[in-house]
């Protein structure tokens, strides 16, 4: 019996993952517990929950693995700031202070917060953690691995060959040349928050054409062999702690969009922003296809594992499949830095502790790896809170919910363990009938209070996806984690079809989530379409709900019609007394 705990954090999206004899038994983002979106602290609450879930004490752990090398990261920051003298003055004061007072002491923080002996604390490196999170969670016994993010220690892109012998690094691209940081700089330029609004750029791109491709290519310069570099005149992420682009970018593309300004693609200004978003998206896709070409030429392998924040770009993932040389693509649900916790643990299990992989590896089978609450606990809570509710026979839950949905109701859906990764995949979801065109506006405006241009995803029963979507071959594994965009073949799903005729689909296998699968079944029987609109159970700017109390608090503040909390149905009558 061996337990390995992987941890990531102190940048953004901190998380903890517990392996039991090499198998992931618990995985959670710290934000779900702390309720601070993209929580950037040490994942103390998530780590404690992992131990509690397994019923073990910190002393039972074989080792704890931090996802990166703190000293090497600090070195990169210092070296960069030296080179950027004197304009890095503010950033130097800020980051040096943070590092000297906090981040450099991560080992002793882990020792004191979790109570593990120092000799059990190990360190992976940033891109190796990303790479391991994709490869060791994939069903491939051999694969090429590509990791692309903002930056880890020095690397911003790493290329590996992986097989029974582990991960073999082939090459890397170093800071300050970074696809992720350039994407984030454009995210800021387009008026969204860095490390949060990148999805919104992707959503905005659907309203535009890549009319500024040439300009964006002056910032991110792609070379014929798959390499790229960045023209540092346009960006400031290497010397500023506050800004990520310079006035030169505004001279190149026109004035930036201010945060919170309305976005209307029917105005010339809105169209310009949409076109810039589409251009950034296009150049990012070209860069990824170029890197995949390099990797394929060196490895000759058929399978590609992709990780790092850029792998969450579901539009680019489709282009990689269509235009890239690999036959199959795998991305792990938490491809960003949270996933580093999983990768660090898996890497240590296989490569430090020397446990070989199975000859025919089994992929991570479900995203439901977080905390769950029993019906007993939920029932007692509802009684204590004096919230009006109806207890439903657990067998009847799918039927009742499907009937509500067919009637046009929008539901909160809280079932089982919460999801690993940034997407709601049928455990903590808001669900609705995708056939109703008015649903998009209704949910954006009255339920989640978010921007009108953001699309909703469809969840479809496995086996029926081809009826509705053009899933590119080799993308089946991505579609399970909602990491792939595909053209929609029908006009029958207006609420989940984006402005450009695509959808970010979620294919639901029975084994991954039996209850949700049976809901799709029942809804399909009633309406002829086993498809639901599925969006995360949260309000704008908040983390997805984890606990029943959080679900109720979100439910009562939203315009949701009903909430299925385990086997209980709650309506919008306020709390009594």
């Amino acid at each position, binding site marked *: 019996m061996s337990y390995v705990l992987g941890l990531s954090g102190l940048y953004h999206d901190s998380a903890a993952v517990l392996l039991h004899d090499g198998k992931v038994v618990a995985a959670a983002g710290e934000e779900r517990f702390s309720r601070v979106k993209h929580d950037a*602290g040490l994942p103390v609450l998530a780590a404690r929950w992992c131990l509690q879930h397994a019923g073990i004490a910190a002393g039972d752990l074989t080792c704890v693995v931090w996802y990166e*090398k703190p000293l090497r990261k600090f070195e990169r920051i210092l070296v960069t700031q*030296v080179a950027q003298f004197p304009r890095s003055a503010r950033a130097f004061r800020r980051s040096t202070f943070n590092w000297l007072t906090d981040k450099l002491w991560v080992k002793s923080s882990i020792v004191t*917060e979790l109570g593990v002996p120092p000799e059990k604390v*190990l360190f992976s490196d940033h891109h190796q953690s990303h790479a391991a999170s994709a490869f060791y969670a994939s069903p491939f016994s051999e694969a090429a691995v590509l990791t692309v993010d903002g930056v880890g220690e020095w690397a911003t892109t790493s290329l590996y060959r992986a097989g029974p012998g582990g991960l073999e690094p082939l090459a*890397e691209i170093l800071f300050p040349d970074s696809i992720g940081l350039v994407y984030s700089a454009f995210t800021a330029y387009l008026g969204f928050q860095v490390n949060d609004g990148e999805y919104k750029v992707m959503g905005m791109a659907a309203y535009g054409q890549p009319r500024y491709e040439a300009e964006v290519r002056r910032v991110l310069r792609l070379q014929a062999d798959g*390499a790229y*570099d960045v023209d540092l005149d346009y960006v400031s992420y290497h010397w500023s702690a506050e800004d990520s682009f310079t006035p030169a970018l505004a001279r190149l593309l026109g004035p930036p969009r201010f945060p919170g300004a309305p976005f209307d693609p029917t105005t010339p200004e809105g169209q310009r922003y949409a076109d810039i978003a589409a251009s950034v998206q296009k150049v990012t896709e070209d860069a990824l296809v170029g890197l995949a070409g390099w990797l394929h030429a060196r490895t000759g392998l058929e399978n590609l594992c992709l990780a790092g924040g850029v792998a969450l770009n579901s539009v680019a993932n489709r282009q990689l499949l269509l235009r890239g040389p690999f036959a199959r693509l795998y991305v792990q649900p938490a491809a960003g830095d949270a996933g580093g916790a999983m990768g660090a643990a898996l890497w240590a299990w296989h490569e430090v502790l020397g446990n070989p992989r199975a000859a025919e590896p089994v992929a991570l089978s479900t995203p439901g790896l977080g905390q769950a609450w029993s019906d007993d606990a939920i029932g007692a809570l509802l009684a204590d809170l004096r919230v009006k509710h109806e207890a439903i026979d657990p067998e009847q839950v799918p039927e009742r919910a499907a009937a509500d949905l067919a009637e046009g109701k929008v539901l909160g859906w809280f079932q089982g363990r919460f999801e690993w990764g940034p997407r709601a995949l049928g455990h903590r979801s808001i669900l609705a009938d995708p056939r109703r065109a008015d649903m998009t506006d209704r949910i954006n405006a009255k339920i989640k209070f978010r921007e009108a241009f953001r699309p909703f995803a469809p969840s479809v029963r496995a086996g029926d996806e081809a009826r509705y979507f053009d899933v590119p071959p080799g993308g089946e594994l991505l579609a399970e984690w909602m990491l792939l965009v595909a053209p929609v073949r029908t006009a029958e799903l207006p609420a989940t079809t984006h402005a450009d005729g695509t959808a970010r689909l979620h294919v639901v296998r029975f084994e991954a989530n039996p209850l949700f699968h049976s809901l799709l079944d029942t809804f399909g029987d009633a309406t002829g379409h086993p498809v639901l609109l599925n969006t995360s159970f949260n309000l704008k700017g908040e983390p997805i709900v984890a606990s029943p109390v959080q679900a109720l*608090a979100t439910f009562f503040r939203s315009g949701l019609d009903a909430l299925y909390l385990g086997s209980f149905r709650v309506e919008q009558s306020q709390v009594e007394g």
Partner: protein
Amino acid sequence: MSVRAADLPLHAVSWLVWKILPGRAATKMAEFSHTEAGSGLDMLAATEETPRPELRARYFRHALDELRHARLFRERAGALASARSPQGRSRAQAVLEDGGYLASQGIRGSESLFRQLGELEFLAFVWVHEKRGAEQFDLYASLLRDDASTAAMFAEIARDERFHIAYSRAELDRYTKAGATHDVRWAVLRVRGRRAWQGWLRLTRDLGNAMAGLWLGLLYLLVIGPFSLVARATERPVGGILAAPPRAPAAERARGMA
């Protein structure tokens, strides 16, 4: 409204913020929206953690109130900010969009307030802080008589705060009736003491940070500066796809932080 001498500084500052610097008012409300959301989260955690069923419902309603206040402040701050700057370029808007505010201001840590304080002291905390909040909001409402909708919002919020004061006081009185007079008094004292202590800590922390900033600034000028001249020659590492450097075995590499 009669003003106690001790409250004069607060009144003076508030008057400045709300009457003279309208841009500050929007920013202030954006900040309030975050702190109210933070209290909402504290109350939700208390809802989950209290062993007393009868208090669970109270905490939950209280949480919903605070989260609603957060929304009211957010909407009001947004409206004020966009009225002043339709482009959306304002300090208030930046604070509103700052998803990391709770963490960067130290409002949320990994241990919930309820767990840190326990039931009695938590109730004392609620009572002391709600009272303070209600006084502040009453004052703002009175200063904003010429901005009817903002004043109305403050009045509405102050109404909720009075309910929070009433129930937390009633719970404290229940402890007192049960013979825990001394404990209640202590709890209130400790909360007040902690408030003062945290104010002091904030002050020393800010001072310390300023000192550290100064030292780091000096270090930057005197050490990093000359060093940068030497480093200039190798300013930019070679770009492009570089071969991965050779590595030691995994078990060896896993030991070090570098």
